[in-house]
């Protein structure tokens, strides 16, 4: 069960959204990590056959997914970043409608929709209209629709965007539950979302896959060391200007910094094991801080 991506390219006018991407994805959870505008959504939309690539190919079990058409989409579950729904439908109606366009038999669809509603915790409010749901509830309805056809390929584009921390944790747990025996590709620019659940991480920058591997492999590959040190408040600007700082914490003694640097930034600095957040900061630098909810 392999999804092979070969030299995939897509440009919008002068912008190269996806630039010669190649990768092979099997069963497991993959985290696609990148800042906004890195090309994640374009890449995922091509995987869902919603966009045609300018060049390159995507193959499922050796067959071109665009030629497979409906047969490929039968294997697919997709939760888009901008998850749209039918506001006047109840959650149950919504799921049954999506089940019908996914080709599920009505009797099976009803049974399976009930199971999923219970799994995502929406059973008690199944008769409520979609427009009355909170952001978190809508996302849960979104994951339920993506799971309706028990997909072999589950693509989730920024599934935790806009969710509060409690909902995000709940969502991560839900994905871990359903990730068994299928390919799950999860895009985000929030590192903590995938740090715990993704088996493999794909780092995407400017339309390219810059780095792939497990969290351990990625952190091990980082050439710079992570240092923890405490500085006086008046020295903070100096360190921010001269080093990549991944975290700042106020303490009674001053300001505790987490610094990425090949050399020791000060005598009192203590080396620390690198995390995925550090890798992310190292690769995306300034851009990583552009989004306030990045880490």
């Amino acid at each position, binding site marked *: 069960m392999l999804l092979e991506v070969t030299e995939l390219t897509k440009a919008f006018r002068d912008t190269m959204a996806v630039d010669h991407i190649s990768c092979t994805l099997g069963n497991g959870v993959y985290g696609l990590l990148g800042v906004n505008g890195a090309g994640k959504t374009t890449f995922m*939309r091509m995987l*869902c*056959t*919603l*966009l*045609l690539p300018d060049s390159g190919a995507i193959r499922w079990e050796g067959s071109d997914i665009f030629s497979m*058409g*409906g*047969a490929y*989409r*039968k294997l*697919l579950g*997709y*939760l*888009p970043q*901008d*998850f*749209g*729904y*039918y*506001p*006047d*439908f109840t959650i149950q*109606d919504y799921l*049954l*409608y*999506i089940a*019908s*366009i*996914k*080709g599920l038999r*009505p009797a099976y*669809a009803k049974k399976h929709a009930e199971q999923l509603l219970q799994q995502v915790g929406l059973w008690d409010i199944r008769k409520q209209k979609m427009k009355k749901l909170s952001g978190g509830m809508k996302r849960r309805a979104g994951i339920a*629709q*993506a799971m309706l*056809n028990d997909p072999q390929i589950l693509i989730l584009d920024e599934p935790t965007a806009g969710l509060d921390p409690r909902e995000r944790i709940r969502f991560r747990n839900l994905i871990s539950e359903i990730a068994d025996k299928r390919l799950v590709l999860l895009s985000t620019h929030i590192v903590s979302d995938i740090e715990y659940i993704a088996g493999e991480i794909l780092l995407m920058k400017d339309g390219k896959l810059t780095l792939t591997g497990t969290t351990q492999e990625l952190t091990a590959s980082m050439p710079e060391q992570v240092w923890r040190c405490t500085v006086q408040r008046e020295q903070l600007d100096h360190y921010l200007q001269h080093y990549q700082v991944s975290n700042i914490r106020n303490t009674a003694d001053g300001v505790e910094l987490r610094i990425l640097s090949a050399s020791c930034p000060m005598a009192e600095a203590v080396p620390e094991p690198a995390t995925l957040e550090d890798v992310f900061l190292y690769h995306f630098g300034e851009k990583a801080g552009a989004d306030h909810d990045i880490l």
Partner: protein
Amino acid sequence: MRTMIFYEIKKTVSRTGGRIALGLLLFTLAVSCFLAVRVYYVNEEGAREYGYSAVQKLRAAQKEWAGVLDEERLQAAFQENIRIRHSPEALSEDITENEIAFGRLQGIYEIRSLINESYAEGFRSYDYYLADRLTSVNAADFYQNRVRLLREWLETDAKDQFTEAEKAWLIRRYEELDTPFFYDYVKGWRRAMEYFPTLVMLAVMILGYLVAGIFSCEYQSKAEAVFFASAYGRSRAVSAKVKAGLLTVTGIYWALAGCYSAFVLAFLGADGASCPVQADRGGWKCFYHLTMGQAYVLVLLGGYLGCLFLSGLTMLVSAKTRSSVAAVMVPFGAVFLPSFLSFIQHPLMNHILVLLPNRLLDMGTTLGYFYLYPVGGQLHGAVPLLLILYTALSLVLYPMQYVEYRRLSKK
């Protein structure tokens, strides 16, 4: 497929706007029914009566004169009119007395109108009091006058409007009418035809509003990604949208037309279905040879075809532009634009205007139009051309929606 169609229709009618639109349609149906059956009967005291009993009395009065409208019946009706008009009640200056006289006239009122048409001075003139002024009529001329007046009109006022072949064709059509024809009480059919266009014009706009969202709703609610990424999102689900549109239009239209027709004809009576349209004053000049029943079926079919075509066009615009707003303008434009274009007085423009889809919505009036079209070496009136043209266009429109919407699935 049935589930998909069910939910597509549910999407349309579950919206607040959709429910309001359906409510408005029901309200219009009620008003149209009320207006169509609001018929009065003037009783022996000269007072107006309304309601079902009034209809029954009027029907009974006119039924007395039902039968083949031959010279004998015409002469009798004419003499009866003279007798009533010269009665003390008719000559009185008291309005109530006049009303009593009018009450006695109700039985022959429609035949009297036909006499006014037949013995008129010109083809395009109508004098309400003509039958009262005539001292005698040659009943043998009654049907021939119809042809004579047409011929005179074609040679004078309308001499430049038609070619010689068209003139000959029209005269032949007039001569081909089977006479003497059967006369009967046809109030039910006439009133049903009279008020139906208002109902159907509002229906076409409401149907347009309902179906305008069928293709654009995915884009408006940003649900298109899930839709197109589904197994049937580019095949059966699109087909379900087309079918849902067809079913919505067909179901709502025929429910509306059925309720309206059943109520109006049950209330006013469906007598005279086999009378030719010429047996009613409104159809006297018509060159189509149809019975009242056939004409009404034509009115219903025309309305359906108009709704089907305009809703189909609305859906196509919706599929192409992904916008309900742009799509919903289609039925409005189709209904109102011809009114503005009619200010352009040009023979060609008039011929075009009569072939626009809004004419399907008022087939009763279209039956009275004198526009001829040479097709396939033969002359035809606008009615058969409208039916053929818009049936063909509708057959093309709906598959086009499917193709167009599928095209959007890949960018």
